[in-house]
């Protein structure tokens, strides 16, 4: 139990945990101390000086963001003295600030504006100066306008903490500014355009590039949802106005840097209305795809499915909701009566690894062990995992990397062990057993020949000292990794799609032919759901149905194309890689006549006279509530899962990446790489 201390802030009694700062302690009793540079969860930075408060018994004011609570402390946050100080500081800031709130994008959620109002400053009392900094706006994501910058350093700190390290303070005195190395544009500075800095900036120095005149903050309806573009399944907050998405932020309060989303999640949404978007069903007529009605399209499909029966195959992405997955499974099994239904999950994982992965929080873990995985913000393979691990390390967590390849995240590791992952895992287990930690006899036998080197010894020590280690492993190494948790810790196999774990738990896993079989050998009728890494119509396929939101190469070869909704136009749930149930909410109406996957299946089932019920919340909850059982399994590497993660993720998001902004990014990255 953490110790609590009692203190008084503005006459209110506060019981706060030991070690908490005064700013956070104030929040506990609704005393909000002005601050511009504080970032919750990080050490007080002390730059803005706005949070100065008086503490009885101390001569001069102290900064609340960096002063720990003490028993019996009496704090005053609104004395004439500190109010004067704040007015003085704001006055100084305003003396080099554009102050054009009437047209400024940030108006309404700008902290500077809020405090100027509160402290009655219409303008500066000094002679106003313009610094004349150039604006960086050559990328379509972020407009960097240093003229508005108040040098709070929040952007610098978030960017550093997550390991991207693009921004820093440069220059001195009045000419100090935030810049990049050699003051190049963001594009040339290794920026990943994650936009973490956008969320962190309290003023208008780093808004989204296209935000201006896309509505004021208070006009937006905010809809919390989940990004389905990759295996991280990040929380997002969608701002909607006039039926359109205006921007997306992390699913956190503005100014919080707890959560991360990547450029795909933040900026990829403009693909919704890309010209490749399918708005009506299409059917093949004389070798070309022609628009048709839902009614006609569905009756053709119903007839084909009835005819093909168990010679029908369904292949789907694992980036669909639990509800869609369950509907699809029942549709295939009970309506079409085929056992051939599988997802792209089977390309990179077995079912047991997904089903038996545990739940854990990175923020609670003091040791993260990464085995055979290469998360990277730069290649956008599980970028949120990469960022979260780096943040954790920067807040005092440790990182042990076990890998046979050279990977970027090693730079953040406390210790990296290079070589065959299984050999290393065995040796660590052996070393732990040698140290006297309890294991079972099977495990002991399995590792008795392992060789413990000095490095292994070090790794074992890290595990021994950790309270709460969490292992992230590639699915092919799940069993071997899980053996370590017989001694200590939790294990999670990480899939590459947002609902990898969900589809496994729901059971959208084939009982007949596998995904690869269906693709390689073809099916009489092949029904493809969502975007899959498949560009050519499999041979020996008599009839191809593609149900997706955007035109793909495969769709062009289909006999029928059905328009489905995107992740912003549907609702449902997924299980993210950490094992948490997350809820998608519908932010905008479906474009054109597109429908959710499950609505389409229900509609076809009706035509096939075997009506399907939409899955209920209860059913889903029951299916996903399984307690993983872990016991000893031989140390093996499962094969057959050797996909290239980056190419895989890019291909399942091909149409997202064709969106205006992400297409620019792809080109920019390619241009810089050469």
């Amino acid at each position: 139990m953490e110790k609590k201390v009692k203190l008084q802030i503005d006459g209110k009694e506060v019981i706060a945990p030991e070690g908490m700062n005064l700013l956070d302690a104030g929040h506990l009793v609704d005393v909000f101390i002005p601050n511009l540079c504080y970032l919750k969860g990080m050490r007080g930075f002390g730059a803005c000086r706005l949070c100065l408060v008086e503490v009885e018994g101390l001569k001069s004011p102290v900064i609340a963001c960096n002063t720990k609570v003490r028993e019996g402390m009496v704090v005053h946050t609104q004395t004439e003295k500190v109010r004067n100080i704040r007015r003085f500081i704001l006055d100084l800031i305003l003396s080099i600030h554009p102050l054009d709130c009437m047209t400024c994008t940030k108006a309404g959620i700008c902290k500077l504006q809020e405090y100027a109002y509160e402290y009655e400053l219409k303008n500066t009392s000094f002679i106003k100066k313009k610094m004349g900094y150039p604006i960086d706006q050559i990328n379509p994501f972020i407009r960097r306008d240093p003229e508005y910058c108040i040098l709070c350093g929040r952007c610098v700190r978030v960017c550093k903490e997550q390991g991207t390290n693009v921004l820093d303070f440069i220059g001195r005195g009045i000419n100090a500014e935030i810049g990049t190395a050699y003051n190049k544009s963001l594009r040339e500075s290794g920026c990943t355009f994650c936009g973490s800095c956008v969320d962190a900036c309290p003023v208008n120095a780093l808004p989204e590039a296209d935000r201006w005149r896309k509505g004021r903050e208070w006009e937006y309806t905010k809809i919390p949802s989940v990004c389905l573009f990759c295996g991280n399944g990040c929380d997002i907050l969608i701002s909607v106005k006039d039926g359109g998405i205006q921007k997306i932020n992390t699913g956190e309060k503005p100014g919080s840097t707890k959560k991360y989303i990547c450029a795909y999640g933040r900026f990829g949404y403009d693909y919704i209305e890309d010209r490749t978007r399918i708005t009506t069903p299409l059917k093949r007529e004389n070798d070309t795809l022609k628009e048709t009605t839902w009614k006609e399209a569905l009756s053709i499909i119903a007839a084909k499915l009835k005819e093909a029966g168990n010679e029908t195959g369904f292949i789907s992405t694992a980036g669909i909701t639990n509800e869609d997955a369950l509907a699809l499974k029942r549709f295939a099994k009970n309506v079409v009566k085929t056992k051939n239904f599988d997802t792209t999950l089977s390309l990179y994982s077995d079912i047991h690894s997904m089903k038996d992965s545990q739940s854990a929080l990175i923020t609670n873990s003091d040791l993260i062990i990464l085995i055979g995985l290469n998360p990277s913000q730069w290649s956008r393979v599980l970028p949120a995992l990469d960022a979260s691990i780096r943040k954790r390390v920067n807040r005092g967590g440790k990182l042990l990397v076990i890998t046979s390849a050279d990977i970027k995240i090693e730079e953040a590791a406390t210790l990296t062990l290079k070589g065959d992952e299984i050999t290393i895992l065995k040796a660590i287990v052996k070393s732990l057993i040698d140290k006297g930690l309890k294991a079972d006899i099977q495990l002991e036998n399995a590792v008795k020949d392992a060789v413990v080197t000095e490095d292994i010894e070090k790794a074992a020590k890290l595990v021994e000292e950790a309270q709460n280690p969490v292992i992230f492993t590639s699915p092919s190494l799940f069993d071997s990794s899980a053996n370590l948790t017989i001694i200590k810790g939790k294990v999670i196999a990480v899939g590459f799609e947002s609902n990898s774990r969900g589809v496994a738990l729901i059971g959208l896993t084939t009982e007949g032919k596998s995904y690869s079989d269906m693709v390689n050998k073809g099916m009489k009728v092949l029904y493809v759901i969502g975007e899959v890494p498949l560009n050519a119509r499999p041979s020996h396929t008599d009839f191809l149905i593609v149900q997706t939101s955007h035109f793909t190469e495969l769709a062009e070869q289909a006999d029928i194309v059905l328009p489905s909704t995107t992740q912003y136009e549907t609702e449902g749930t997924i299980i993210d890689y950490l094992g948490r149930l997350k809820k998608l909410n519908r932010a905008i109406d479906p474009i054109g006549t597109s429908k959710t996957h499950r609505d389409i299946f229900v509609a076809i089932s009706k035509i096939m006279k075997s009506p399907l019920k939409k899955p209920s919340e209860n059913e889903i909850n029951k299916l996903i509530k399984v307690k993983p059982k872990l016991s000893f399994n031989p140390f093996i590497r499962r094969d057959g899962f050797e996909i290239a993660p980056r190419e895989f993720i890019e291909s399942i998001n091909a149409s997202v990446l064709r969106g205006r902004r992400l297409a620019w990014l792809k080109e920019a990255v390619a241009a810089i790489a050469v």
Partner: protein
Amino acid sequence: MEKNIIIKVCMGTGGVASGGEEVLAKFREMITESNLNAKISSNCHAQKVGCRGFCSKDVLVDVIVDDVKTTYKHIKPDMVERIFNEHVINGVPVNEWLAGPEYNNFHDKQTKVVLSHCGDIDPEDIDSYIAVGGYNAAKKAVLEMAPEEIVNIIKNSNLRGRGGAGFPTGLKWELGLRIKSDVKYVICNGDEGDPGAFMDRSVMEGDPHSVIEGMIICAKATQSNSGYIYVRAEYPLAVKRLQMAIEQCLMKNFLGNNIFGSDFSFDLKIFQGAGAFVCGEATALMRSIEGKRGMPSPKLWRSAERGLWDKPTVLNNVETFANVPKIILNGANWYRKLGTERSGGTKVFSLSGKVRNTGLVEVPLGISLREIIYDIGGGIEGGKNFKAVQTGGPSGGCIPAELLDTEVDYESLARAGSIMGSGGMVVLDENTCMVNTAKFFLEFTQAESCGKCTPCRIGTKRMLEILERITSGKGKDGDIELLEELGNHIRATSLCGLGMTAANPVLSTLKYFRDEYIAHIKEKRCPAAVCRDLITFTIIEELCKGCGSCKRVCPADAIRGTRKSPHRIDKELCIKCGSCFDACKFKAILKV
């Protein structure tokens, strides 16, 4: 009869710059060539020594014949031959080149503890240091003393940090010892960013081993096994000599594993800083070693608890460390008695400005400003009147004549509106404009502000703008009050010492020389006739002999007149450069 002759050539940065290397080489050449040692059966050798604080007289050379020391000043290589022939061989000093009583006076009135070996021993030779008792203190501390014992001696000595703030060193070490950790650091702050200051440089160059020895003792006292010396890269000679010293220590096992044969180990490295003023601030310095931007951070923990790489760290100034071996050897009492009740020992100052003898002076704490300026400094240059002394570097304050008897210690200087700082002391005479002086110092601090915190970054700039307008004749009513308000706010709200003290030069001159500000603002007049926009040059007809000297030097072609008749200055064209004023031999030009 055998004679023992030692020739010591000053080779601090000042000495080297004035040609010390060549002078030393010449002496060595003469010794070999003349085959002196064989001829007059003498034992003669020439060596380099560190700075002795009087660089304006460099190259300084001591010729010591059987312990009788004669010092020469301004020696050039071509003068060596005569000194050698007349003095070294024939025993007759070359009188006209002697450094003279001024030099001796300057040194004799000082109390040298930190500087006692500077200018005396060969800084590149560990044996030279050992010969004067070097490393006895470290050996004793490591082999015979318990950490608590060392801490107690330092506490009792009343030694306070010489880097500026004057924090009691013993207390700092005590905290450092008390905190348990597998890794702890000792850091020596040799950043010395104050313009014009060179006390730390002189010690690092002239007696590097004393700093290392102090650090070894600190390491033992705080049970720390690794250390850094942070030196600015602009001090290449200091870096080189410290590096040599560390290597020599490693060879002798004074540094490294199991030093002096004990079970205590201490590893010491040099870190070269990029040389920003603010990097001298303790937290900025540690960030800089960590490879980050040198920017101060607020202290949630004291450095003793979480410093470099979040490990417990004890950081002291060069001079602070250099005092330590002497305290261990001579005892806490001896050191304490040198100073005042609250501050023990001596302090080195860098005396500069309009004083006759400029250079490094080491004096006991508690001495008065008057004694330093008049007795050691030899009074004001050129018979002018003393106006003020600025202490504490760019963020210090100006102390007026009325307060010349102020004792030099941390508290008294603070009471007078200034600070001890790291020991800068600039003497200002009647020709100094105090508003302009304040502006000069503020320009420095504003440019060196790291820019992190709002008051220092923007506030000092706003103050500077006000000073700029006052000195250019555009001052307004209320500017004085505005300066005071700004200054007090910046002092109260800044994050680090730089901002907290940045307004000192302005606030202290406002306090003691307010009338000068008023003259600038209300009468548009610069009483010291310094501020260009407020002065005019006129030729006094009655005094002008029509020599034309002024006309010849005027870069703006602003002077009219024919030979032998009074000249005139065209005020429209005059750019107020002052050349004519200096050129006129008849004092016919008036500057007001």
